[in-house]
Each structure stands twice: as C-alpha cells, then as structure tokens.
C-alpha cells in the first residue's frame, strides 16, 4: 500500500478534535486542619462561561420558565456530580510526586448567578494528608471538554499556611510541556489514554513545599 496514501489517510483520520467547549473560572481553597498541620479538604468553585450556562439552562428548564428553580438545579448538580466521578472530579493530588487519593465529595451544589452556572464541591483526603514535603494540587479535565482556568494565582489559596511552607502556582506552558514530555506522552497514549498522566502534565497546579516530616 503506497506510503503516500497511508500518510494521507492517517492525516485525515486521526480523530482528535480536542478543544474545550466549556470554560470555567475556578477557585480552589485548600482548607487546613485546626492545628494547621495537615490538609482537611479541598473546596472547589467553578463559574462556567455564559455560553455553556445557556445550554444548561435550555436543557434543564423543565417547566419552561427560562429560569432554573431548586428542583431543576438539583438535577443539574446530580448530572455533573455523577459524570465527574469517572474523572476523579478533575482533581490530581500528588505528594512528593506520588499519587495521593482523595475521597469522592458527598455532594455537589449548583446555582445560577448573573446568567452563569456556578458549581461547588468539597473533597477530603482518604488518609491524613500531612503538610510535609512537596504537595501538588492540580485541577484539570483530562478529556479537554472543560477548560478550568485559574485566572489569578490568588485563586488557588491556602488559609493559615505555616510560615515554614512555601506556596507556588505552576502553569505549565503547553508547548514546553509537550516538548519535554514527548516520550511520556507517547507511552501514556498506549498505556493510559484516559488517565491522569495528561492532567499531571498540563494542569495548572498549586504546589506547597514544607519541611519533610520528622
């Protein structure tokens, strides 16, 4: 089979039409335990763009009054909540580079403000997450459907962070990230196409660095 045809067919068939249709301005609050020694929970707030919000309004407005009442909002929250479960609620947490597991949130709240859908939820660590070493909190949709934007570094916040810890917001530049991770990405393509590897590479993340334990 002539190589030219192969190449041409490949070029037209790679079906990766990947681009977010949905944008959310996000805020992440890392809530510390009362003694400020460990992470109690992660609070997420996503404010969706007006275009997507209008499709949500259109879709869930059962009584056709062009507004979402409490029952309709509950429906919205339930739909998003159950879908996010398949994608770890877009959370990627690592401790010293190793995956750290978070509990599924108990529920998710949705409401409309100024024609924009707002979604809130809170997730707790499965095992105690001590403030020690390097901890990264990333928020990312691995399917590229939603672009989660932290417009300002201050939107990834920790209240009462001990003085011996530092806080940085890391925004990977996609071009650099792709260049640096070409090998990993190729492996990920074969091993874990849906997985968290891409989130780790592309997600905007909050990095806390504290003195190691003990």
């Amino acid at each position, binding site marked *: 089979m002539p190589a030219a045809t*192969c190449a041409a*067919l490949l070029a037209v068939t790679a079906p990766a039409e990947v681009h977010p*249709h949905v944008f959310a301005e996000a805020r992440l609050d890392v809530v510390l335990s009362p003694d400020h020694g460990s992470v109690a929970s992660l609070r997420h707030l996503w404010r969706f763009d007006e275009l997507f919000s209008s499709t949500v309004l259109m879709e869930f407005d059962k009584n056709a009054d062009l507004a979402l009442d409490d029952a309709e909002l509950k429906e919205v929250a339930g739909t998003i909540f159950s879908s*996010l479960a398949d994608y770890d609620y877009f959370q990627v947490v690592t401790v010293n580079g190793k995956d750290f597991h978070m509990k599924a949130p108990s529920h998710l709240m949705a409401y409309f403000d100024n024609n924009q859908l707002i979604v809130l939820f809170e997730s707790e660590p499965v095992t105690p997450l001590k403030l020690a070493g390097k901890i990264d909190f990333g928020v990312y949709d691995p399917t590229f*459907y939603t672009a989660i934007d932290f417009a300002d570094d201050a939107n990834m916040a920790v209240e009462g962070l001990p003085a011996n810890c530092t806080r940085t917001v890391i925004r990977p530049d996609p071009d650099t990230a792709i260049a640096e991770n070409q090998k990993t990405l190729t492996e990920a393509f074969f091993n874990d196409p849906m997985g968290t590897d891409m989130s780790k590479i592309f997600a905007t993340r909050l990095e806390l660095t504290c003195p190691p334990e003990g």
Partner: protein
Amino acid sequence: MRPLPSRTLPAIAAIVLVTVALVGHAHAQSSLGIGTNDAMPSGTGLFARQLMWINLKQQEFYRALADAMKAMRQDGSKLWLLIGLSFLYGIFHAAGPGHGKAVISSYMVANEVALRRGILLSFISAFLQAATAIAVMLLAFFVLRGTAISMTDAARFLEISSYVLVTLFGAWLLWKKAGPPLRRLLGAAPAHSLSAAHAGHSHAGHAQHHHHAHAHDSHDHSCGHGHDTHHHVHAATEVCDTCGHAHAPDPALLSGDRFDWRTAWTAIVAVGIRPCSGALIVLSFAFLNGLWAGGILSVLAMAVGTAITVSLLATLAVTAKDWAVALAGDGRVGNRVHTTVEIGGAALVFLFGLLLLSASFSA
C-alpha cells in the same frame, strides 16, 4: 488477480490497527454529563504536537467567538465580527480531524469521484450539518423545552444515528469494492448479491428534503427495497414522510465508472445529521438572547469554513491515491494498487463507523 488478497489483507489489517489505535477511545458523552464531547481526548500519540497546537488555536477562537456574541448582544453592528470569527472557527475546527472529513475523504478514495464533485460533497455535508444544528436548536427551544427530552438526548440520538449510517454505508461500500474480487477468487460469480446492499437507506431526520432530487429515479427492483432496514428518524419538523428513500444503487452503477448521487447522498447524510456541539452552544446562547439572525449566520459561516478545510483534506487524499496509481502504471500492478486502495478506503469508512459506534455506547 490471484495475488490480490494476499496484498489486500495486510493492508486492511494495518488500517484496522491504525484506526483502532486512533479512534478506540472516542467518547461521545462529555465529562460534565451535559452536552456531547466531540471526540477523544488526545494530547498524545503520533500527532500530539500538531493536534495540541490546533487545540490551542481552537480554544482562542472559541473564546473570541464567545466574546463577539456577548458584544453583539450590546451592539448589533458587531455581527460582522461574529461572522468572520465563525468562519475562521469553522476552518480550524475542521482541521482537528473528526469523523466527517474522514468519511468524506475515505469515500472519495474508495470511489472515482471527480475532485470538483468531492468539493461539492464537502460543502453540502457541511451545510447539512449546520442545518441539523439549527433544526435541533429550534426544536429544543420551541418544542422540547419543558419535556423529558433534553437537547443532549436529541444531539446524542442524532450522533448515534450518524454512526450507524456511517457503519452501514461503510459495510455496503466494502461489499461493493471487495465483493467482486473475492467472488472471482472463490470462482463463483453471481450477477450481484443482495445482502449488504441496503446499507445506504436513510430516512433520517429533518432537513433532508433534498432527497427529492433523486428519490425515485431508476432503481433495479431486483435489489429489493429492504424497508425493514430503514432508519426512521422522524423529527417534529419533518414535512414529508415519503421522501428520503435512498435506494440501493442500480448494479450497473456499482462498477464505479459513473458518479452515483444516491451513494453520495448517503455519505452526506451520514455525516451531516450529526450536529457539531460548538454550533449548538453558540446557537443556544444566541436564541436565549434573541440574537436569531446572528446565531444562524454564525453557524452558516462556520459551515463555509469547515467545508473549505474538508475539501482540502479530501483533495489531498484523492491526489495521493492518483499518484500511487499513476506510479504503479496502467498494467496489472496499477489495477491491483487501485483496487487495494479503494478497498482500503471502504474498510476505513466501515471501521470508523464501528469504532465510533462502540465507543459512544461504552462511554
């Protein structure tokens, strides 16, 4: 023709592998559970960098588009900005390859289609897609709102119908292309077989009134009508329920020497009944804000942009095929290359449908 299968099978096997690798993870359902995601997540694989770049460009355009829509709500004179951006969005949107261009290109590779006609096909399918999006949105806005059927349901239903059509169309194309050499090989040569010949039947949806153009011209009754295989996808806007019968082509046309509009329409409909989710989002915002003309013009401008890109890609695929055939010469080798490429194209359409379909159900 003896050596043909030994060459064809590896070629098909290679195509299967490549296709599985590329579309095996397509997910129709979006990660938020609202709206449909256009395709698989892929920041990885062979074309990671290029696709990522396209992805970033699309993102920029989408944002600009959203801003233009909001600006137009304040100031109607921003309409031209919106139309211009929608056109560019269409071009870039189509550059990130999706099933539409794959089906059209593969169909053109599998058939003798003059480039001029191929470009026409690209344009018609892009406009049908725009018309579907507009129809779905009007339906959602005036009919479905307040019912148990959501827009996501409607879009997903059309999407699955589209994949079913692509699969059936591919199976039929494959049979048409691979059948004769196969039968020659087996020594049996029936005049023509009936089994898979009804794949092209489509009775799908609104906005397909164009079928009138070719609905009832000559068809060989020995082909059978196979009405049980019709896909009745009636929508509330449908005004005609006798049109849309795309009968299986006359066997005389199966030789591939003459361009067959009925077959072409099947490809167009298979591609065109799936609305693009970007268009749906733009339209719902526009309609909710009373920007009727703006929304519709924006989607039409997107269709023009998409059609241009699809035409280019299809031209590329057909040119590559012609070169390959020309290089192989006029003799038996040329014929074999020709047949192999055509079977490959048909197999690709079939596999595309199958994989998209299975992925959309497993999602």
